[in-house]
């Protein structure tokens, strides 16, 4: 095997990701020439450095993202927990307030409306609307409006 043929065969092994030292055609040549064997070993060692020296692009690209993601997850937890607590508190408050009488409503809000027949006036109906006039610190002023509607 000439040196040129050896080089061709060596590169072919590397292209096919095979070990040159285990190649049937190269092994005898390597066994006969220690310097060539050492040179091939040196090349393989350098290729090892190529594979290990620089982080793979996938890992390198994801590493900053992983860092940011870690930061974002922490920030999210820091923000979401208080929000969750606040939401829970609001829900409790609403539940408590919601169970209270409807009289405690915003001003102008209709509390109750009813339609009743005015027996005194057969062709009329009475509409009664109770609304909140004002509300301040648990004190609520209500008003009602009574109207008679002729049918």
């Amino acid at each position, binding site marked *: 095997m000439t040196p040129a043929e050896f080089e061709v065969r060596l590169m072919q092994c590397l292209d096919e990701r095979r070990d040159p*030292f*285990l190649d049937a055609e190269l092994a005898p040549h390597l066994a006969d020439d220690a*310097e060539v064997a050492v040179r091939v070993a040196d090349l393989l060692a350098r290729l090892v450095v190529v594979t290990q020296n620089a982080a793979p692009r996938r890992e390198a690209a994801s590493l900053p993202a992983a860092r940011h993601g870690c930061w974002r997850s922490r920030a999210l937890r820091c923000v979401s927990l208080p929000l969750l607590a606040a939401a829970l508190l609001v829900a409790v408050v609403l539940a408590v307030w919601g169970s209270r009488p409807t009289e405690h409503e915003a001003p102008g809000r209709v509390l109750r409306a009813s339609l009743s027949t005015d027996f005194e006036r057969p062709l009329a109906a009475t509409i009664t609307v109770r609304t909140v006039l004002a509300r301040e610190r648990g004190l609520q002023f209500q008003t009602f409006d009574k109207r008679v509607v002729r049918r």
Partner: protein
Amino acid sequence: MPASPVSQNALDDAAFAELLQRHRARVLHFLQRLCVGEAEDLLQETLAKVWRLRASFDPARNGEAWLLQAAFRTFCDHRARTARRPVAGPFVEHVEAPVRASAIELRDEVVAALQALTPIQRDLLLAFHRDGASVEELAARHRLPVNTVKSHLHRARTRLQERGGRDDAR
């Protein structure tokens, strides 16, 4: 298993042991140039093997060359055993680096060699060996013929060797 042929002029045990002792350092240095971490183990394995075959050794032969060939076969057998084990990546990941003053020196040499490559050579070399891309993938990615990609890879590997070359080359 057939018995090894016995040399008519075989050395006695003491003479053979003296032969091994005389060339031991040279054989160890050779193995260290092939691999680092397991050179001592391979040396012991080589010496044990040649000791069993001492009766077949012809004193007229070059003892050093004979031992170096035996060491090389031991090295190849070791690589074959290692290759049969399940590995996660290409075989180059399991190659031991030759003796260097430090691993940093080797890395610095490789980094310098990579920087000296042309952009296409460097891109293809890294994509093939570091990222595991196939030649066909690289050809499609760079819109080059497969043989052109191979030529670039071959040239890049050759230049990888030339830069910072071995201390005791040739």
